[in-house]
């Protein structure tokens, strides 16, 4: 069954840039998909449309039964509650502890305290950071901070986890650790879409991989078929 169905989608920014052009794409429930391509090819625009940070100019986008392209501004929160998002720069609250950062995602939804407590600890355990719950972000390494961000993204049990270059700021070893965590999340049933520059990771993971070029799908590698065809990191 498809979790995501993108049909005839184009995005033209007000400045005239055609970031995505007439794209068709479906992603199955429980799948793990990489999105790669050179800088400016439209990777971020594509995933931003999924969580309705950006509205497509044309076409329809269905995510988990919600027509995201038609979603009104005041209803955007509905799709956000089904999707977790992780970024390169972690986006943690520096003045809050690890626990508070993760709990924040549930507090703003008005969940009861004991339920928040239970879910936060479970989430922190999954990313292996339960023992640092009382620490502040600046006391953690980059890899640990990204794990907090992942814990926050999945704490409410989203159907989809979107990662925009989650390893962009991390060294190779740490990156692979993060990939391990994301893979673990995927194995527990969450669909993953991950944007990355790092073809080494993509080659190692052997998941479905979509190569973008100038807002179009240049290649769609099925699971286990990706090979870095003589290109270096597309950075």
């Amino acid at each position, binding site marked *: 069954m498809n979790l995501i169905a993108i049909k005839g989608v184009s995005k033209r920014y007000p400045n005239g840039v055609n970031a995505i052009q007439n794209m068709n794409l479906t992603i199955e429930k429980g799948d793990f998909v990489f999105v790669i391509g050179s800088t400016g090819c439209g990777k971020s625009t594509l995933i931003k449309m999924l969580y309705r940070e950006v509205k497509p100019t044309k076409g329809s986008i269905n995510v988990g039964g919600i027509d995201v392209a038609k979603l009104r501004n005041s209803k955007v*929160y509905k*799709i*956000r509650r089904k999707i977790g998002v992780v970024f390169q720069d972690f986006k943690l609250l520096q003045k809050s502890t690890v626990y508070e950062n993760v709990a924040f995602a549930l507090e703003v939804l008005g*969940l009861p305290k004991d339920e928040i407590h239970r879910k936060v600890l479970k989430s922190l355990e999954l990313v292996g950071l339960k023992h640092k719950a009382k620490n502040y972000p600046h006391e953690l390494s980059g890899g640990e901070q990204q794990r907090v961000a992942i814990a926050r993204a999945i704490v409410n049990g989203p159907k989809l986890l979107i990662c925009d270059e989650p390893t962009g700021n991390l060294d190779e070893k740490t990156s692979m650790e993060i990939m391990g965590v994301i893979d673990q999340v995927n194995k527990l049933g969450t669909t993953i879409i991950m944007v990355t520059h790092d073809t080494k990771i993509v080659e190692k993971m052997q998941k479905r991989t979509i190569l973008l070029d100038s807002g179009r799908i240049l290649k769609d590698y099925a699971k286990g078929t990706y090979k870095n065809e003589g290109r270096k990191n597309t950075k």
Partner: protein
Amino acid sequence: MKAVRILSRNIRDSFKSVFRNFSLSLASITCITITLVVVAFSIILSYNVNNFTTEIERDVTIVTFLNVDIDDEGRQTVLKEINKLDNIAKVEYESKMTIANEMMESSDVYKNIMSSWTEETSPLQDTYLVKVKDIERISETADQISKIEGVSTLKYGEGMVDKLVSVFDMIRKVSLVAVVALIIVTAFLIANTIKITIFSRRREIDIMRLVGASNINIKIPFVLEGLILGLLGSIIPIIITTYGYVAIYDKMDGQVFSSVIKLVEPTPFVYEISILLVIIGMIVGMFGSWRAVKKYLKI
């Protein structure tokens, strides 16, 4: 239950925010304080002036002197003519003998002089004491009465009253304009405070949106913050008003210049003003922050 949890979290956060940006909050609170002090002053002034006006209005009488040689029939005709005018509230007749008696009672000197006067020899005149409905038209009404056949002369505030009333009216209008202007300025200042709060909490807001907080949920803390600023700003004006007015009232013995012009009694007047100040403070605070939220949150 969920709404209560979200609200209590928001109230906590809004208080935190007020104290986190304390110097900024203080500027807004000070501005609200100044505005509300002026508002309170204006309200007290307007209320009292209003009170003066009604007191004076109740007191002002057009004393209508009738011709010395007027007879009963003439008096009746004059009364009828006066009652035909539209601004008449009450007419009372006082004969020259009644007036003489009143004067004689009030002093022995008068008694010596007047006791020998009779209906025919008395130099006094019969009068109608006329009260009007609308004090601002008193000169017009007086003019109409003076033209009635059988009326000799009139006596009333002689312009003093109209002048006083129009001065009072002016005071009310000026203070109203000042209050409105100050409220607008304050709302802008609060909007500015909230704007800076919004920018300082950009990251938090972004994350809230990302994890699916609804728009209203994102807006509430800022509107609450404005409300809190308004509440805090109304404390000092309420204290000043309550104690200040009671002190002035006691000092002046509840009247201005003469017993004719009375001040409004402090209770429940000061309580009513206090409630009004709190409400104005909260509304101005919320209005200011609502503007900022609409403009800078873009959601």
